[in-house]
Structures are given as structure tokens and as C-alpha cells.
């Protein structure tokens, strides 16, 4: 008996030990990004963990670098990149909501021919290699004047946001008993009022969470604005590369930009924790 208790104790300690090890691995890079963002240029090379923190990197990327030598790019355009990311990501989510919510409802409630094929086609966009559409779009966008425009990026982001919203919302609509609608129908409500007044409020928390998650994925996207956007719509993800691929590497500036670009998603992730698993698995796991 005594030995069983000790071995259980040992198992618990070993388990916690492994868990701690994993979380050091998972969280250390984030912590280190924060540390580097607070280092001055010299401290970057001479110190590791102990140094006098400075906010000059944040100052430089937000308001311009007062000490920037001639020829060195003073990267104060960060607020512009941040706004660009905000505009294309929220634009993409709004468009996806407008077209995706009705589609998710139709796919959940009605039986019609080709329904599963239609649903799978939407899903397959999520898994399609981006370059299949990017290569032709790089030509089509230039012909249509959509290259390097907000609308161009919002349009192509539908590949990211629409499958997610349709599939997650469909699973929420399917959870609602059809009896509720039937009862309202008997009371003489037309279907669109039932949808608006009864169903939509019921799925609202799931809807909000799915929209926020779609926003995060749009915000994090890199390859679409890399190829289909230029300087007008440059997002934070594309601009992040600029800090270290130029002649001189600004690691601390890049870290500061990374921190600012990552804060929105971390906050969003924490706020939708309850709905995260269903969103991440496209409705397959109820969580």
C-alpha cells in the first residue's frame, strides 16, 4: 500500500515535470520576443536576460526613429500596416458573415440535392494550396485593377474566412431543435422573421466566436497579401519580414512590431476560449 502511494506521488511529480517542460518550450519564445522588444541596440548583442528595459523600439516603430541615420529606413509605418491588417481582416469577416450566415442556415436546415457536395466544396477551399488561386489571380487582379487594393485582399480572404464561418455556424444551427421553428411557423411567422428573431439570437455566442476566430486567421495570413498586395495594403505580417531582410537587421524593432501585432489575437483567443475548439475544428468537435 505504502509503495503504491509513493509511486502515485512519483507519477504526479513526473507528469507535472513534463507539463512544465512543455510549457517552457511553448511560452519561452513569446517571453523572449517581449524581452528583445525592450532592448536597445547594444543590449541586443551584449545581454541576455538582465538589462535596463527601454521603450525606444516601440517609439521608433510607432512615431519614427529620431536617431535614424541617413540611408537607414526609419520604419514608423507600423500604424499604417496595423490599420491595413485591421481593414482587410474585418472587411473579410463582414463579407463572410453576410454571405455565410444564410448559407450555413440553408445547409443546416434544408434537404436538397447536392447539399453535401456544396458543403464539401466550401471546406475544400480551406485545404487548397493557396498558390493554385494566387498564380492566376496575380494576372486577373492586374486586369481588373484589384491588385494592391483592399477589395482585392478582402475578396481572396474569403478562402480563409468563409469555409470556417459556414462550417462552424452550420454545426450551431444543427444544434437547435427544428421544433422551435415549427412552433413559430404554426403561429404564422414567415421563415425569415423566425430566422432573424429566434434562430440568430440563439446562435449569437457561437457566431461571435466564429467571427473572431475568422478574424484571427485573416489577420495572420501572409501569402495572399505578399503576392496580391503591394505597398498600399501591406499588412503587419508582410511588413514583419522587412525588419530583418533589409541590409541591416533590426531584431529589436521586429520584436516590438511582433508584440503589437500579436496582442489582438492573444486577447481574442482568451475571450473566446469556450468556443475555441468547435471553431478550430470547423464544428467537428463540440468541445
Amino acid at each position, binding site marked *: 500500500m505504502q509503495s503504491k502511494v509513493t509511486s502515485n506521488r512519483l507519477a504526479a511529480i513526473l*507528469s*507535472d515535470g*513534463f*507539463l512544465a517542460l512543455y510549457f517552457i*518550450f*511553448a*511560452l519561452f*519564445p*513569446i517571453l*523572449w*520576443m517581449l524581452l*528583445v522588444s525592450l532592448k536597445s541596440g547594444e543590449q541586443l*548583442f551584449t545581454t541576455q536576460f538582465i538589462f535596463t528595459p527601454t521603450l525606444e523600439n516601440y517609439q521608433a516603430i510607432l512615431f519614427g526613429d529620431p536617431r535614424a541615420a541617413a540611408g537607414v529606413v526609419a520604419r514608423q509605418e507600423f500604424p499604417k500596416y496595423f490599420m491595413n491588417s485591421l481593414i482587410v481582416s474585418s472587411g473579410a469577416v463582414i463579407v463572410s458573415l453576410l*454571405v*455565410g450566415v*444564410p*448559407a450555413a442556415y*440553408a*445547409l443546416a*436546415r434544408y434537404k436538397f440535392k447536392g447539399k453535401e457536395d456544396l458543403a464539401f*466544396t*466550401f471546406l475544400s477551399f480551406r*485545404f*487548397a*494550396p*493557396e*498558390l*493554385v*488561386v494566387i*498564380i*492566376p489571380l496575380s*494576372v*486577373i487582379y492586374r486586369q481588373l485593377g484589384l491588385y494592391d487594393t483592399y477589395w482585392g485582399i478582402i*475578396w481572396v480572404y*474569403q478562402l480563409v474566412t*468563409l469555409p470556417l464561418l*459556414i462550417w462552424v455556424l452550420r454545426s450551431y444551427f444543427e444544434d437547435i431543435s427544428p421544433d422551435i421553428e415549427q412552433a413559430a411557423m404554426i403561429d404564422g411567422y414567415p421563415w425569415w422573421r423566425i430566422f432573424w428573431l429566434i434562430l440568430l439570437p440563439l446562435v449569437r455566442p457561437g457566431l461571435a466566436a466564429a467571427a473572431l476566430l475568422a478574424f484571427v486567421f485573416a*489577420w*495572420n495570413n*501572409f501569402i495572399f497579401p505578399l*503576392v496580391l498586395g503591394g505597398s498600399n495594403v501591406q499588412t*503587419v505580417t*508582410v511588413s514583419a*519580414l522587412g525588419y530583418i531582410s533589409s541590409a541591416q537587421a533590426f531584431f529589436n524593432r*521586429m*520584436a516590438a512590431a*511582433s508584440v503589437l*501585432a*500579436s496582442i489582438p*489575437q*492573444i486577447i481574442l*483567443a482568451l475571450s473566446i*476560449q469556450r468556443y*475555441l*475548439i468547435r471553431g*478550430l*475544428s470547423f464544428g*467537428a*468537435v*463540440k468541445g
Partner: protein
Amino acid sequence: MEENIRPPLAVRARPWLIALPALLVLIGILYPFLTAIYYSLTAYAFNRPGSVDTFVGLRNYTRMFTHEDFLYSTYITFAYALLSTGIQLSIGLIVAMLLNRDSRLAKIFTPTLIFPMMIAPVIGTLIWKMMMQPSVGILNPMLNAVGLPSLQWAAVPETALFSVVLVDVWMFTPFAALILLAGLRSFPSAPFEAARVDGASFWFTFRNLTLPMLTPFIIIVVVFRLMDSLKMFDIIFAMTEGGPGNTLMTYQLTAYRTGIQFQRLAQGLPYAILLYIIIYITSMYLIKAWGRAQRRAAGY
């Protein structure tokens, strides 16, 4: 009662009308897909505008299959995808089982589990690149501190694949852990209690109860992670742009380099289309397997 009467057209058309806006978007997305197939059958290069009308049949495809780097590109595409998915699944399963205990540490850590996955893949990769960097990096000093030699990480062919897989594992193990943890928490407690009362060993319970019931969740993880890592672009591009040399030139990176950087659209597209076919077939198969596993797990 009125089952034999076909509902009026207005009622039958209703789902299509409701879905109409989405269908329009769908057409707008399908159009470039079809254009992609058409372009891949021409000699189109961006710097030679007239070349879009030169139809060459399957020449771009035979060119891809007979290219000297094709086999290596296939190898690196699958090596990256299978390694990252496999490692994420294994670590994710261990982490999920450890988090599914009554432990204070587990309670503190669970909310932070998602963090690496919420940071943009490009930015996460740049952080790792910075940590691997020889002058400002932190990983080599850490290795040296425990008596290990410094590594050159993604800068040399020997450790380049390891370096990008490491970043992929860091970023997406949380996905595997979260899905599997949701699975573990959804299990009924009765069979596990019965096994405990009968004095079943950990391995016996794991093999005969946990694993079969977890199969649908494992398949979900594989669907998402395998498909995403087969077409991974961000991590590899931010780390080395496919280098050093052609060490990390997967299908996606080859399609990008040929089709976008070298502007030979028609020659780049076959790589992306081939990858799409592979992904489409694999995901269809896995989703069917998921349906079967779900029914089987429900039988317990």
C-alpha cells in the same frame, strides 16, 4: 399525408436562394481555379504576355515529373508534413492526457495552451529565426550551457528540415492537444471506473479504452495538420525561402519560386495543382474514415 405532392418551385428553390450570395462568392473563387488549370496547359509567362495563347497540352506536367529536382521536392514535401504531424500528434496526446488530470499546474497552464497558435505563423517563425541567429540568438547559448555544441539551425542543409519542423511543432502542437483534450473530456466515466475497479493496468486501459474512443479526434487532428503542413508556406518562406540551396523546396515553395518569382506561371502551376489533387484525395479519404471511427466509437 401530402408526401406525394411535390412542393411548389418557390419552396424547393428556397435553400438555393438563401445560399445565393455564398454561391456567387463560390463562383468568384472557382473561376481562378479553372483559370489555373487552363494556364497550366499553356506556355504562359508573365513577361511574355502573348504566351497565354500558346497551348502546349500536358508539357508543363511532363516537364515537372521529369525535372531533376521533382523527386527531392516530393520527398521534402512529405517529410515535412509527416514529421510535423506525427510529432504534434504524439506530444499533443501526452500533453492532453497530462492536462486532463486534477493538477494545479494543469489548471494554470491550460488557458495559455493556445498562444503559440494565435500568433501569425510568419511572426512566430521570425521569433524562432531570431532565437537561432548566431549573434543575438538564445538557443546556442542555451545548448552551450548544458554542454552541447552550437548548431547552425536553418543555415545548413543538415539541420534545416529539423529547424522548420521544430517551429511547426511549437506552433501547432496546441491544436492537437486542444482537440484531444476535448475528446478526453467528452468520455463517459463509467468504463474507466470499471477498468480501475478491475485493476486494469494503465496500458491496458489506454490501448483498449482511451485509444479507440479517441480515434475520431485523432483523425480530426490528422486532417487539419496533415493538409496544412503539406501546403505549408509561411514557416518555410520566413525561415529560409526554401533554402539553403533547394533543401526546403516543397511543392508550394517550388510553385511560388517558379510561378511568382520567376514569373513562369504555367510552369509553376502544375506543382500547386498536383498538391491540390493529393490533398483533396487524402482529405476525402480521411473524412470518410472519421465518419466510420465516430460510429465505431459511439458503439462503446
